């Protein structure tokens, strides 16, 4: 006999699958648009699976547009952001987790303040400051502002991680005569490789995705990052949806890799943060 106990999970799975379609379908639609031919894309009756299959759109984006240039800019900015986030994040987190000094809690609070402070209120002054510093219209300028979004999470995440490393380890190392800095380099960093990987990938994706600062800090189209470059296509040329969706699909590849590798880990980390507030 069929009982509710057995049927309920199946019903729940079906319901969830249907609800998940709300998120799956738009992505699916973008994907199949990118591999359809132009006549099929523009036909009045949309096709829900592609009748034609073509890589023309991808070829046009990769070889016939500035996509690769934008890609290089995005990669440069993201690498700088990852490097700076790791260095500043790890040292600050170590200081906050393991060193006792007056004002320690204030630094933690300041970083939280930065995290919550709305970026839109900084665009005018930061633009002026970057012009003054000669960093306007440079990729370095963009990277410096992206740290605004990456550092708070990194410091918080690494701090929690460092704090979970048994303190006896550094006592031992110090009795052996190692300096604090040595302890950080030889004990903490090697033990924290998974956490550092999370921070690195997070910083990469945040920088890769960021739009507002990359928009206001650059004037030359040769310095556009992917977000800014693709957005400009929509408004400057006749929209070719096939090419636009190809560009979109290529641009989400880092998010996909990120999720494939560290999805569960990241969601758990994010979740812990939310619970702790």
């Amino acid at each position, binding site marked *: 006999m069929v009982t509710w106990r057995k049927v309920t999970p199946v019903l729940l799975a079906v319901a969830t699958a249907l609800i998940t379609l709300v998120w799956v379908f738009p992505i699916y639609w973008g994907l199949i648009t990118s591999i359809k031919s132009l006549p099929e894309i523009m036909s009045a009756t949309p096709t829900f699976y592609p009748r034609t299959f073509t890589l023309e759109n991808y070829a046009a984006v990769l070889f016939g547009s500035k996509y690769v240039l934008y890609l290089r800019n995005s990669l440069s900015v993201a690498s700088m952001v990852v490097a700076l986030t790791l260095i500043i994040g790890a040292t600050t987190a170590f200081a906050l987790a393991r060193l006792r000094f007056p004002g320690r809690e204030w630094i933690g609070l300041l970083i939280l303040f930065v995290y919550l402070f709305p970026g839109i209120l900084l665009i*005018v002054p930061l633009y002026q400051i970057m012009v003054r510093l000669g960093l306007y219209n440079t990729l370095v300028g963009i990277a410096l502002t992206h*740290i605004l979004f990456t550092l708070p999470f990194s410091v918080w995440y690494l701090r929690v991680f460092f704090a979970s490393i048994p303190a006896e380890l550094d006592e031992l190392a110090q009795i052996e005569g190692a300096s604090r800095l040595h302890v950080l380099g030889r004990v903490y960093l090697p033990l924290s490789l998974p956490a550092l990987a999370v921070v690195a990938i997070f910083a990469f994706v945040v920088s890769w995705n960021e739009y507002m600062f990359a928009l206001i800090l650059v004037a030359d189209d040769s310095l556009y990052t992917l977000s800014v470059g693709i957005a400009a296509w929509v408004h400057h040329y006749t929209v070719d949806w096939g090419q636009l969706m190809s560009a979109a699909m290529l641009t989400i590849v880092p998010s996909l890799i990120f999720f494939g590798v560290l999805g569960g880990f990241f969601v758990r980390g994010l979740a812990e943060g939310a619970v702790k507030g």
Partner: protein
Amino acid sequence: MGPSRIREDTRQLRAARPTVTGNGVVSAAAYGKPSRVRAARWRDAGLGYALSLPALLWILTITLYPIVYNLWLSVHETGPLLQAPTFAGLRHYSAILKEAEFWKSLERTVIWTVGSLSATLLPGLGLALLLNQDFPGARLIRTWILLPWMFPIVVVAMIWVWLLEPTVGVANYALRIAGLTSQPVVFLSVDWAMVTVILTNAWRWIPFVAVNVLAALMNVPRELEDAAKVDGAGYWQRFRFVALPEILPAIGVLSLVLLMWFFNMFPLIWLITRGGPADATTILPVAIYKTGFELFLWGPSAALGVILFLFVAAMTGVYLTIIARYRIGAGGQW
């Protein structure tokens, strides 16, 4: 078997929960002799400052200094290239507050924020409750549901503009096939643009809310649920008296953060509508951008920023006060 019994049992179990203490700081006393203790303490402090210095410098130059500089800009008059700044007093502020356009933008900002919050929080909570159940594939979805949130905003905007395209877009096709519309719906028209951007924003943020609420739900101690079950509580009773009080703090923090983020959000609206058509989606953040980077009125743009900040600060204050009062009213518990 009434709610009071469940509540009482839950309360007792909560009170018996161990509290976590200790911050993991190595005490300098571990080093031995007093003089060495003091030396080690000084070294620790010095190193602490040295290691925090890069972060502090960065906060100073990229956040604190710009905030002060923005205040300065807001009371000065300059040319487009910042030539010859002259003191303007509160002229920009009074001009903004007299403009009807400002009040309309503020109204749109409130509509946008409240709309986005309601379209995000309740469905997010529902999704979290669903994903908190055990069924085949649940683990997989719990993680992957967050994927769209990780997409670049420009990609989300483009995909949605394409779905909602008036002539060959699939949304209009679906509406036509379902017999709901005879004329194509122009989703980004003056009448519909705000609804469209709010729903697109909700699409992006519901998974984020769901994952966060889900984490809080999973942290609800098993004993509490089991005790309530023994007391004969049904699903809704358990949610109302056991789970909800446990996850309310998380939801409180989450909605405050979302409130602040939505109120100050620029990229999604800018990418989809550029504030149009006819300013129908020009919320204050969009107005700040347009005033500064299209009209080059830096002073007024900075003043708008300060006004927006004051609103956010006031809202946060009100929100925290309400929460504090509720907390006290509920006997120290959420």
